[in-house]
């Protein structure tokens, strides 16, 4: 990746994190941990990979993203606002009555959201449906789905893992935000995914593991998947809460409320300084 492109992506990623922390802390509730761990994947998708038109979110030439871990909407909303799908000021309406930015992503409310998600396991299955529908119509659009490691405990995820390769789907890439934590506990203390890359490979996917906070590595992994003749699976090793050092990889960072946002202003200031320095 060219240095210039990488710099732009780094700025975009910081911007997403700043907006995410700002919107949920100002509101006083929001899914912080997973939004920050997935921010870099969303950066690469909207910063360098996906085709889209903010003026025409339903453009039929667009690539699709289904955020199957639908509670991490804040990171995606931030990216969409930064890219011009709707005004940035609207981010502050999150989770308020009548908002277009609900806690879990909703395709009927938010410009740029391709599929409603929130009941875990369903989004990735819907994404496979989109890929199959496009395939049936001989359309080349790419379909991306982002799942969580906790979400991968849902049986429906494994139905999708089995079906996609058997259906010969090629325009489909699943990115796993493997942040090692779920709401209650560390994932391995509840039900470990084990060697998830190998599992995906055994199911018939082209599967890779990358550092989910290395923008170049994510971008390169997507390119490799696109070149393959089978669906792609990218296990992104991530840190829940990445970008707010006090909250990284600690239990209880899944969703924050009220006083739990203490120190967020300093965290946002630090991200802003980092952004200004690029």
């Amino acid at each position: 990746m060219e240095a210039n492109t990488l710099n732009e992506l780094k700025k975009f990623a910081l911007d997403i994190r700043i907006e995410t922390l700002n919107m949920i802390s100002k509101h006083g509730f929001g899914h912080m941990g997973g939004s920050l761990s997935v921010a870099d994947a969303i950066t690469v998708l909207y910063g360098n990979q996906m085709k889209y038109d903010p003026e025409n979110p339903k453009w039929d030439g667009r690539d699709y993203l289904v955020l199957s871990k639908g509670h991490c909407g804040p990171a995606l909303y931030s990216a969409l606002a930064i890219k011009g799908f709707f005004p940035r000021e609207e981010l502050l309406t999150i989770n308020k009555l009548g908002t277009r930015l609900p806690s879990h992503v909703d395709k009927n409310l938010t410009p740029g959201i391709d599929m409603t998600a929130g009941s875990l396991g369903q989004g990735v299955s819907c994404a496979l449906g989109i890929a199959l529908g496009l395939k049936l119509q001989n359309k080349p659009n790419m379909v991306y789905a982002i799942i969580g490691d906790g979400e991968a405990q849902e049986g429906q995820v494994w139905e999708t893992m089995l079906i996609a390769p058997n259906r010969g789907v090629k325009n489909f890439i699943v990115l796993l935000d493997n942040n090692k934590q779920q709401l209650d506990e560390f994932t391995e203390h509840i039900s470990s995914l084990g060697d998830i890359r190998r599992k995906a490979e055994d199911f018939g996917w082209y599967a890779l593991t990358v550092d989910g906070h290395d923008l170049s590595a994510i971008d390169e992994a997507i390119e490799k998947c696109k070149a393959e003749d089978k669906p792609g699976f990218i296990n992104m090793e991530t840190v829940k809460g990445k970008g707010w050092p006090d909250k990284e990889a600690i239990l209880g960072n899944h969703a924050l409320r009220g006083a739990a946002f203490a120190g967020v202003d300093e965290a946002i200031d630090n991200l802003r300084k980092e952004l200004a320095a690029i």
Partner: protein
Amino acid sequence: MVKLINEKIKDIELTKAYSEQLIALAKENAMIVDLEADVGNCIFGPEFQKVFPERYLDLGICEQSLSSISAGISATGMIPFCHTFAAFASRRMCDQNYISCAYAKNNVKIVGSGPGISSGENGGTHHANEDIALMRPITDITIIEPADSVAMRWAVKKAAATFGVFYIRAERYGQERLYEDDSGFEIGKANVLREGNDVTIIAEGNLMIKASLDAADILTAKGVSACVIDIFTIKPIDEEMIIQYAKETGAIVTVENHSITGGLGSAVAEVLCESFCGVPMKRIGIPNRFGEVAQPEELQKVMHMTPEDIAEAAMSGIAGKK
């Protein structure tokens, strides 16, 4: 406009009418796609697959994905019909039907075959006795229970042509034809099959409408004039007709191939209570018990859903008039 048939003709199985109509539609419309979870052969045989191998997606035994994948396919502009046994289409797919299909406002047609006692020998695990109860509270869903092959063909065409989530109950039986080939129907409009003055029997589905018509004959022999209505769409339900006939005949009996809890009987009771009709009402259907292996006709007896049971309920309703 509804046209009742005047002669006695043996009908074909409703699942057969469904599959024939879907294949015919798929020939006209390249956006129609059929999704199955390994029970397609029970209703299609090899037919759909043979004509449209690309548009017949047998996903394997994965009902949750059947629903969500259908939702995703519809988001690309295609019109998916997803079929499985009614027990799985409702109980197993409930959250997916709710979130992926209805809440997300996708364009999915869910078809549940063999509802209620029509699954007979498959036994209690396969009897969908509460599929309507599970589907009915879901916002924006349309629930159709075609009572003969003509109504089924109309339902399939209407569902394909109308954006939104439809649930079509498809009995594996076909007894007598009720409607002329060119009969019209309307979503939310019930159809009067037989006029009567003393009591109104509101029924759904091929199996129980036949039983209701037979019950009306029993009542006629006793000098009682019973009206028989095919409710046709359970959601939206024809409130106007329910209230009109409650007022005109003064007693209601509901007859359904479904649990008496949460289905047609409950839906009609809601209408009657909220309209302050105050007429006596009896519900015939599957009581609070699980299904078991038997022929549907045997189960009808076990569950007290025979024409005699319906006639007795009607007499009880009439006796309850003030």
